[in-house]
């Protein structure tokens, strides 16, 4: 009886707000079509995907694709390892750089110079990944790249960057930091702007030096924000930027051992038209792990600080 009443009230409430319902429909439909339907597309993981037959026409094959993945476990382990390790590397160094720049700019915000410099530092975020790959090539290319030119003027042997896997973790790190350091520091800067200035005044009266003020006031103030951001980023541990790992590396086969991540692998499979069934299996694996990570991270964040939880 009570339940009946409740349902009625939901329906009657919806009927009362027909206008709201109408305004929600386009957004709802878009999400349904382009966020929910792709999940159905992952059913291809259980199919023997055939380009001519399409998604619906292909034959079911049970867990055959997953068996294939286990069989080619060298590749599977490699891409998962690369994804996770790069996540750790980029997040750690990236966060340190972001916080560092935020503090630098904060110490300099009183004048216009700091503001304009920060504006310039943010700009690389808005340069497309394709442009970044062009720029990277201008620096690293074999014959006419700038770094090799400099090396040869100093009489050192030139390095074929695009053929030497061992340098790529550093190259990708530099590119990532270059592109993200300014933009990433914006949220920390906004957190710093919220610090009560009387804290600094009190410290000054007590005779604290600038480094001491940073060490004992600024950094502790950022601590919770940093940990929350890292926790939230943990939800994307199985994801990587295809711009960085597919475009900047120019999808070079020789470099796969140190550069290919799950997303770059999927991108390569999609553009080269290789077996989509097993690629779907990889994606499904990635999505499930990602889902587990997001849910557990959210649980952690909620325990730490309710306001910052995603849901």
């Amino acid at each position, binding site marked *: 009886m009570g339940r009946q009443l409740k349902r009625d009230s939901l329906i009657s409430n919806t009927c009362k707000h027909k206008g709201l319902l109408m305004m*929600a429909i386009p*957004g709802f439909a878009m999400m349904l079509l382009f966020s929910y339907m*792709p999940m159905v597309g992952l059913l291809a993981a259980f199919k023997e995907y055939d380009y001519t037959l399409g998604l619906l026409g292909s034959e079911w094959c049970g867990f055959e694709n997953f068996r294939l993945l286990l069989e080619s476990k060298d590749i599977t382990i490699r891409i998962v390892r690369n994804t996770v390790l790069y996540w750790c590397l980029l997040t750690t160094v990236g966060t340190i750089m972001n916080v560092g720049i935020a503090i630098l700019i904060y110490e300099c915000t009183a004048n216009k110079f700091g503001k304009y410099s920060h504006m310039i530092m943010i700009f690389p975020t808005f340069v497309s990944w394709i*442009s970044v790959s062009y720029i990277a090539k201008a620096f690293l290319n074999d014959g006419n790249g700038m770094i090799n030119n400099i090396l040869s003027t100093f009489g050192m042997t030139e390095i074929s960057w695009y053929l030497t896997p061992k340098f790529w973790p550093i190259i990708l790190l530099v590119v990532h930091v270059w592109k993200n350091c300014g933009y990433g520091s914006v949220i920390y800067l906004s957190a710093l702007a919220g610090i009560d200035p009387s804290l600094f005044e009190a410290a000054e009266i007590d005779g604290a030096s600038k480094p001491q003020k940073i060490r004992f006031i600024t950094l502790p103030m950022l601590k919770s924000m940093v940990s929350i951001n890292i926790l939230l980023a943990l939800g994307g541990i199985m994801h990587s930027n295809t711009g960085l790992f597919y475009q900047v590396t120019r999808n070079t086969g020789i470099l796969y051992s140190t550069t290919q991540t799950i997303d770059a692998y999927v991108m390569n499979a999609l553009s080269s038209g290789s077996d989509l069934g097993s690629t779907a299996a990889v994606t499904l694996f990635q999505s499930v792990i990602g889902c587990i990570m997001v849910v557990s991270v959210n649980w952690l964040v909620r325990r730490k600080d309710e306001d910052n939880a995603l849901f």
Partner: protein
Amino acid sequence: MLCSNIQTSASVKNKKIKRVTFSQLLLRMFIGIVALICVLPVVLIVIVAFSSESSVAEIGFSYIPKEWSFEACRYVLKFSDQLIRAYGITIWETVFGSLLTVFITSMFAYVLSRRDFKLNKYLTKFVIFTTLFSGGMLGSYLINTNIYGLKNNLLVLILPHCVTAWNTVVMRTFVRSNVPQALIESAEIDGAGEIYTFFKIVMPIMVPVMASIGFMSAVSHWNEWQTAYLYLDSENYSTLQLVLIKIEKDIDFLRKNSGTLSTEDILALKDIPSESARMAILLFSIAPIMIAYPFFQKYFIKGITVGSVKG
């Protein structure tokens, strides 16, 4: 005695001021260097685009070319058909993509912000779930090509990423904290319909957040390459980023397959732009962002600071 006392205190004061400015100067120099490092790679594009082909061929990529020239820019300004079309399609994508995003997302977010609409409990869950699990690039590809028939259809550039959970939540938070409930209620009492209330009363208040999300969306549309790369393979449909990818692909292909011809011959034969011409095309693709950036950067920056406050 008194006089000398005053003098010493004055000199101490002077010294103190001097020391402060010195450390500030050091700080500013350091920030300046970081900003310079951030902007130099982009400057390289400009310099190479304005240096002559022979200079690039002779000394490679360099900040100090042997010879300046407008040759490369003239090449681009001749605007081959393909380039004009790519420019047109990219502009179309950017304008309509971001307008559609802002329009649909703002309506959806407004509905979600209404606490008196009971369906919201489910709609919010519906939106949040997309952050937990997704079909990824592959799931979208399979659905978009097999079921919606979006392969080689320009709509694929604007539809799939139109409504995202992130943008919706950011906008909803904004409405909740900036539009007083009483305003909506009084409009209702005055007899305004739901849709009228939204467009005439709520939307004007939402302008700042709509601008932020609109500009962010416009930049991401302008820089978008994945969708174009995966879905558009017809000669006629090409975005700027895709043109850049294709040029590099042709070069890689020729390098791998040419044993007999010299590079210049091949470039002439295949009508592939030279290094400086390529940089000029790149410059033309970044230029709109470079020009717009100083004017709109506050919206870009607001985009993430608004998002970091969750409701």
